[in-house]
């Protein structure tokens, strides 16, 4: 029989151990016990659970992976006892398994300080999916939240509270600075000011003496007797290795916790290994995933007759998700006279960079980056590979000059052994050879090398390496529109604007080649309307089919008709007209998900007549066919609703009227809710407005669809005028810079600097283009026209709505309809 390995803990490192072992050997029977109810998941990206990822999305493996690899997996069944004498474990459900080798991968738990009142309801930790479910449920009724602990995880948790809709999030830290393990005092000050822009209040030097509240937490009392009121508390005060099992079994543990291991990851019993966050190596717990993976690698190597050993690990980190770049690398704290320190600070932009250089000026030892960490990967490589510095090392951190260093050319100069992805231990050499063997995009490369699949921090560098390698082979491809235009959308937008080109043929003659296609025609059409807002039917054949016929084509070739119903408000008289029109032209009617009414099944010939009747009754085009504003959903708001704070319907109508007809890279949707109950689902929209006691909160870049994403707060408690001003700027900035067919959420995800940058541009006007954006939007608003009105009143244009040009009154005989629930439907 095969020797048995029992793995205790199915977390990130326990899983990685199994993955590495089965890849290299089938000589063992593997039995895994996990305390949590689900398969190992990506804890590093835990916060994305709040951003809409499901537990399954975060899972490290498919549901059949363990069975496919012959691994016995027992979930919700923690190991309770180890008997080292007879080499057996006992689990909660009563299983007893004899092992030849035991691997402890029990990870760590949140450290919860012993403060009076800590047991109250509304106090949480932030470690597992179950923890997040509880926080999410409780946050529904919470207006404010506090995170105890201003370290890496604490800041991440605080950002998550904001994303959950808690407007007042506070961070309490007992040290005099944030992230005390990673950054220095000056860096902390810069970080603090950036975080306050995100809506986080930071309290330093605060020692909590008790948690107040009667049953449920209501506040934190500090030892200076001050009180911070709150509806909930998340503790993130550090981690405590889960060594209780090992301790009970008599294995050696450290005085401050952790299972003592040697360089082979063996515990005091040579048949028992410990890896990941529960292992204590040379007095140190490695609270990051990459060293845990390295430990898993060491044990696999020991078990497969190699003898790789663990020799410590680089603890450089780059903080993700928080909306502000923060990174520290190498020896961040070494200071003069042991080195030369260079600091670059720009309080206006909120950038702080510090690098520590050896006294002979040759090597980079470490550093800290706040506000702009674009150079992180390159600087880390410079430290780790002992690359000799250029004569002017300040170039490394100086704005644009620094950024260039991190570009394609820089990475290509690294030695082949340079470790690019530390989670998966992939070197530059393996990445470049994978590219040469055909893995020319990120997805393919991830699949064959694993690079970038862990924390994701190396992805920018991996992309640079792909581009760099392709370029070296002479096959570099630029992000161009299509074969007819050698430009990105943004470049073409600027060219068309500067050269004042008004139609597609001129654009093609000046900047393109060939005769165009279905990609560049609608794209140029969209740019032309965003710039000049001319009537789109004047150039109908460059429009996508829906824009060309001002209606959405349906199965079987008929069209749908969607009049605008701003804010979802409609009079009984208008409802009757819709009913009459639908009856007359035999149309199917349905209330849409966007709070208006869609009529389906119209013959192309009937469209002008149908619209004629609708326009007579006071309707306008709903632009359901265009890449343009769809609907601004509203809730009933203060005019009727007992909770309503302001008149959300009036504001939704005002906004829908303002932006209707504006063409954009993709469709735009908005919402206005009268209070935080959010019945208009505004946070799922490209822009969402929610009434507060003091005004409105403006959220941007939300999305429904297949990858739902919550909108993020752009500005809080603003008045209606400011709200519209910010919206003008935001929408115009998006229209000018987004790639074609990119919704605002995807655009933001790709935007360098993310939400913090966007906020800076829109709210702080950091690029100085605020006025210009507002003017450009005003031009579009002022030049609005209802396209259908123009067509209905123009016989020449009406003529285009015929199915047969040689028999204009005949309808398409191939259209077939059938009946379902007393209405028509396409027979298909």
């Amino acid at each position, binding site marked *: 029989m095969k020797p048995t390995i029992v793995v205790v803990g199915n977390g990130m490192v326990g899983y990685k151990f199994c993955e590495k072992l089965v890849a290299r050997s089938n000589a063992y029977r593997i039995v895994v016990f996990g305390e949590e109810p689900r398969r190992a998941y990506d804890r590093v990206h835990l916060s994305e659970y709040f951003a809409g990822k499901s537990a399954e999305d975060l899972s490290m493996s498919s549901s059949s992976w363990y069975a496919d690899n012959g691994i016995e997996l027992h979930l919700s069944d923690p190991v309770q006892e180890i008997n080292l004498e007879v080499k057996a474990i006992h689990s909660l459900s009563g299983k007893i398994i004899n092992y030849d080798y035991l691997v402890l991968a029990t990870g760590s738990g949140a450290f919860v300080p012993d403060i009076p009142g800590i047991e109250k309801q509304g106090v949480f930790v932030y470690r597992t999916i179950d923890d997040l479910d509880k926080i999410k449920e409780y946050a529904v009724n919470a207006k404010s939240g506090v995170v105890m602990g201003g370290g890496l995880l604490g800041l991440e948790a605080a950002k998550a509270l904001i994303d959950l809709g808690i407007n007042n999030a506070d961070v309490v830290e007992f040290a005099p600075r944030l992230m005390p393990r990673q950054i220095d005092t000056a860096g902390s000050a810069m970080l603090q000011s950036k975080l306050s822009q995100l809506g986080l209040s930071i309290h330093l030097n605060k020692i909590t003496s008790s948690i107040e509240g009667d049953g449920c937490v209501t506040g934190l009392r500090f030892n200076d007797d001050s009180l911070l009121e709150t509806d909930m508390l998340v503790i993130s005060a550090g981690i405590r290795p889960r060594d209780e099992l090992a301790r009970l079994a008599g294995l050696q543990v450290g005085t401050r916790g952790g299972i003592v291991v040697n360089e082979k990851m063996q515990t005091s019993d040579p048949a028992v290994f410990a890896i990941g966050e529960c292992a204590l190596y040379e007095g140190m717990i490695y609270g990051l995933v990459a060293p845990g993976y390295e430990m898993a690698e060491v044990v696999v190597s020991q078990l497969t007759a190699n003898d790789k050993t663990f020799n410590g690990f680089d603890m450089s980190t780059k903080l993700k998700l928080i909306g502000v770049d923060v990174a520290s690398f190498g020896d961040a704290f070494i200071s003069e006279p042991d080195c030369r320190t260079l600091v670059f600070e720009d309080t206006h932009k909120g950038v702080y960079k510090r690098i520590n250089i050896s006294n002979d000026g040759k090597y980079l030892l470490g550093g800290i980056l706040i506000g702009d960490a674009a150079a992180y990967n390159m600087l880390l490589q410079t430290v780790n590979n002992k690359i000799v510095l250029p004569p002017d090392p300040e170039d490394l951190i100086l704005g644009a000059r620094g950024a260039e260093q991190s570009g394609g050319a820089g990475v290509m100069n690294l030695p082949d052994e340079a470790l690019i992805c530390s989670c998966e231990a992939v070197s530059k050499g393996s990445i470049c050879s994978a590219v040469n063997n055909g893995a020319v995009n990120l997805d393919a490369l991830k699949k064959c090398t694993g690079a970038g699949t862990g924390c994701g921090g190396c992805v920018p560098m991996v992309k640079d390496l792909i581009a760099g390698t392709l370029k070296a082979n002479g096959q570099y491809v630029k992000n161009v529109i299509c074969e007819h235009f050698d430009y990105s959308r943004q470049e073409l937008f600027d060219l068309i604007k500067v050269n004042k080109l008004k139609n597609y043929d001129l654009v093609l003659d000046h900047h393109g080649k060939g*005769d165009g*296609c279905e990609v560049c025609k609608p794209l140029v059409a969209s740019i032309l309307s965003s710039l000049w807002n001319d009537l789109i039917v004047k150039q*109908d054949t460059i429009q996508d089919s829906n824009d060309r016929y001002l209606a959405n084509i349906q199965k079987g070739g008929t069209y749908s008709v969607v009049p605008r119903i701003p804010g979802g408000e409609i009079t009984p008289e208008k409802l009757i007209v819709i009913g009459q029109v639908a009856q007359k032209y035999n149309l199917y009617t349905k209330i849409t998900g966007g709070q208006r009414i869609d009529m389906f099944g119209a013959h192309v010939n009937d469209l002008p007549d149908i619209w004629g009747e609708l326009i007579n009754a006071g309707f306008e085009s709903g632009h359901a066919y265009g890449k343009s504003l769809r609907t601004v959903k509203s809730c009933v708001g203060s005019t009727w609703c007992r909770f309503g704070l302001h008149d959300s319907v009036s504001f939704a109508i005002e906004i829908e009227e303002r932006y209707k007809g504006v063409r954009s890279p993709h469709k735009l949707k908005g919402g206005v809710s009268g209070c935080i109950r959010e019945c208009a689902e505004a946070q799922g929209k490209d822009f969402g407005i929610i009434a507060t006691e003091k005004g409105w909160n403006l959220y941007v870049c939300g999305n429904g669809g297949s990858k739902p994403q919550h909108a993020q707060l752009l500005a809080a408690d603003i008045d209606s005028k400011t709200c519209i001003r910010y919206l003008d700027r935001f929408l115009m900035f998006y229209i000018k810079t987004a790639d074609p067919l990119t919704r605002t959420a995807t655009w933001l995800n790709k935007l360098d600097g993310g939400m913090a940058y966007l906020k800076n541009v829109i709210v702080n006007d950091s690029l100085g283009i605020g006025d210009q954006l507002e003017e450009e939007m005003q031009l579009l608003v002022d030049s609005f026209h209802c396209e259908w009105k123009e067509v209905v009143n123009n016989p020449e244009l009406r003529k285009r709505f015929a199915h047969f*040009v040689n028999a204009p009154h005949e309808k398409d005989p191939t259209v077939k309809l059938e009946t379902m629930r007393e209405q028509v439907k396409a027979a298909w």
Partner: protein
Amino acid sequence: MEVLEDVQWVLACYTDDVPENGGACVKHGSEQIAVYNFSRRGEWYATQNLCPHKQQMVLSRGMIGSAGEACEPKVACPFHKKTFSLLSGECLSGEDYQIKTYPVRVIDGKVYIGIV
């Protein structure tokens, strides 16, 4: 040697019935034919109106353009953007579809389609 076929030239419509750089549909008995006015190149084309992908009567409402170095004229179906050569009727999106093409003649503002 020249192959002589019995081509019948049918008056389909007038030049100003078909929008510049776009298409329109003409009825020929029970057949529907898409006619394209590729005015950028001063050329006219005609194909079947039915898109073979999901059997939709819509090719005349598609966008026209060119593909490749040789500037092969093409039409893109408005439904799922499969593209077809206006010269050979071959599907250019890598699938095995084939559409019928017809010769076109324009004389004195009249558009004739050649039916075999």
